[in-house]
C-alpha cells in the first residue's frame, strides 16, 4: 500500500510538472509537446485505427518471433544441458552471441531476406533465442540429484526420466527464460521496426519523427513502455512467483 501511494504521488508530480511546464512554455512544444497534445494524438490514433493496426502488426510479428525463439531456445538449452560436448563447444558460442545486441543482425537479415517482414521477425527470433537457451541449460543442470535418484528408484529411466522429472523440475528456469526472451524480443522487434516498413509501432515512431510529430513520437513511446511493463509485471512476474512458491524455491 505504502509503495502504491508513493508511486501515485510521484507520477502525479511528473504529470503536473509536464503539463504546467508546457502551458507556461518553459520549453518549445516542438522539443517536448504537452501532455494534453500527446493524449489527443493517442486518441486520434486509436480513433482512426492507425495505432490499432500498428499494435496488431507488431504483436503478430512478436507472436511469431517469440514462439519460434522459445522453441529453438528450449531445444538448444536441452542439448547444452544434457551433452557436455555440446556445452563446451556450442555453449561457448551461444554465450558469446548472447552479448551481441540483436539489432546488429539486421544488416545480415536484410541481405538474406530483403527489407521486409521476414528480416524483422528474424531479428526478433535472435533476440529471444539465446537467453532462453541459456536459462533452459541452467535449469537442467540445476535439477536436484535427489529428484533423479528418487525417480530412478521408482523405475524411471531415459526419456521417461527426462519428460517426467528433469524437464518439469526445471520449469522455474523455463519461466524466467521466457520472461527474459519476451523482454529481449520486444526490444529487438521495436529496433527492427524502426528500420523497416510499416505498419508497426516502431515504424510509426520513425514516421512521426520524420514528419516532426513529437506528440505521436512520445505517445507511441509510452505505449511501447507500457506494454513492456504490463506484460512483464502482470503476466510473467506473477507466473514466476507462483512457480517459485510451488517448486519450493522460496528462500
Amino acid at each position, binding site marked *: 500500500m505504502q509503495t502504491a501511494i508513493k508511486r501515485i504521488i510521484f507520477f502525479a508530480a511528473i504529470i503536473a510538472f509536464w503539463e504546467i511546464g508546457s502551458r507556461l512554455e518553459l520549453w518549445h512544444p516542438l522539443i517536448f509537446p504537452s501532455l494534453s497534445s500527446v493524449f489527443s494524438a493517442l486518441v486520434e490514433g486509436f480513433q482512426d485505427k492507425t495505432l490499432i493496426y500498428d499494435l496488431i502488426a507488431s504483436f503478430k510479428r512478436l507472436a511469431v518471433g517469440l514462439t519460434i525463439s522459445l522453441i529453438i531456445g528450449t531445444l538448444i538449452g536441452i542439448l547444452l544441458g544434457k551433452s557436455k560436448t555440446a556445452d563446451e563447444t556450442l555453449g561457448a558460442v551461444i554465450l558469446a552471441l548472447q552479448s551481441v545486441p540483436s539489432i546488429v543482425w539486421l544488416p545480415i537479415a536484410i541481405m538474406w531476406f530483403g527489407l521486409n517482414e521476414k528480416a524483422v521477425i528474424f531479428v526478433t527470433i535472435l533476440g529471444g533465442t539465446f537467453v532462453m537457451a541459456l536459462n533452459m541449460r541452467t535449469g537442467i543442470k540445476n535439477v*536436484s540429484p*535427489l*529428484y533423479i*535418484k*528418487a*525417480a*530412478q*528408484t*521408482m*523405475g*524411471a529411466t531415459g526419456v*521417461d526420466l527426462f519428460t*517426467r*522429472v528433469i524437464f*518439469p*523440475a526445471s*520449469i522455474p528456469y523455463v519461466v524466467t527464460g521466457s520472461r527474459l526472451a519476451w523482454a529481449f524480443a520486444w526490444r529487438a522487434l521495436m529496433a527492427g521496426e524502426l528500420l523497416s516498413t510499416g505498419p508497426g509501432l516502431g515504424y510509426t515512431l520513425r514516421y512521426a519523427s520524420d514528419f516532426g510529430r513529437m506528440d505521436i513520437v512520445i505517445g507511441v513511446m509510452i505505449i511501447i513502455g507500457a506494454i513492456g511493463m504490463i506484460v512483464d509485471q502482470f503476466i510473467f512476474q506473477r507466473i514466476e512467483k507462483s512457480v517459485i*512458491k*510451488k*517448486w*519450493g524455491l522460496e528462500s
Partner: protein
Amino acid sequence: MFIEINDVNKQYNDKENRPVDVLKDINLSVEKGQFVSILGPSGCGKSTLLSIVAGLTKTTSGEIQIDGKTITKPGKDRGMVFQQAALFPWLTVMENVTFPLKKEMKKKDAEETALKYLQMVQLGKYISHYPHELSGGMQQRVAIARALAMNPETLLMDEPFGALDEQTRTRLHGQLENIWTETKKTILFVTHSISESIKLSDRIIVMGTKPGIILQDITVDIPRPREEHKKEMLEIEDHIMKYLKKEIDKVVSEELQYANSH
C-alpha cells in the same frame, strides 16, 4: 537368505584423488520380513551402503543379491525413502504417489492403490494438496506411501525421520511399526540414533567409521510395543554405547585435529 551382501567394498577418491575406503568387507544377510537398523556415526558409509542396495551406486568390489538376483540397477522391488521427502513439487500428493504406477496400471487402479497407502499413513484427505502445502512430517509420510505403492519386497529408509522434530518423529515411529506389521516388508533402516534403532528394529547392525565396517550385529528381542519395556531398551542402549563411544571419540578427535590444523 533374502538379502545377501557379500564382501562389499567401496572406495571414493578424496580431493587429492587418492582412493579412500568408505566401506570395507561388508557382509550381511537379512531374512525376509526382518526390520534391520543400520546404526553408526555420521560419515561411516550408511547412506553409501543403502544406495548400493538401491542400485544407485556401484560397488568397488563385491555384490548384493536379493532373492537370489544380483543387483545391477534400481528396481521397483526396492522402495527408497530419503531423509528429504524428495516429492515432486509440480505434482499433487495423489500424482506423486501414483508416479511409480503410471506404466503398469490404469489410472483408476493406480489411484485406488495410492489412496490405500495414503490412508495407511493417514493422509487420505490430502490427495489434491501440493507438497509445499504440507508440513515436513506429512511430506515424509507421502514419501513412505509413494515407496509402498510400488509394493516392493524391500523398503530402504535413509534416516527418514532425521529432519523432523521429536514429537513428529515419535508419532511416525508408531505408524512405521504398524505399516511394517501390516505389510511384512523387509526393512533396512539407516539411522544414527541409538534409541530409534532399538525402538523399531529386530536387529541392529552397528557400523564403525574410517573405513566403514560392521562392528556388531545385535538382535533385539524385546516384545512390542516396546514402550512398556524401558529397562531392557536401556540395557541394549548401554551395550551399544560402549561400542560406539570408541567410534564417536575417533570422529571427534579427527575433527579436532582438522580444526587445529586449519
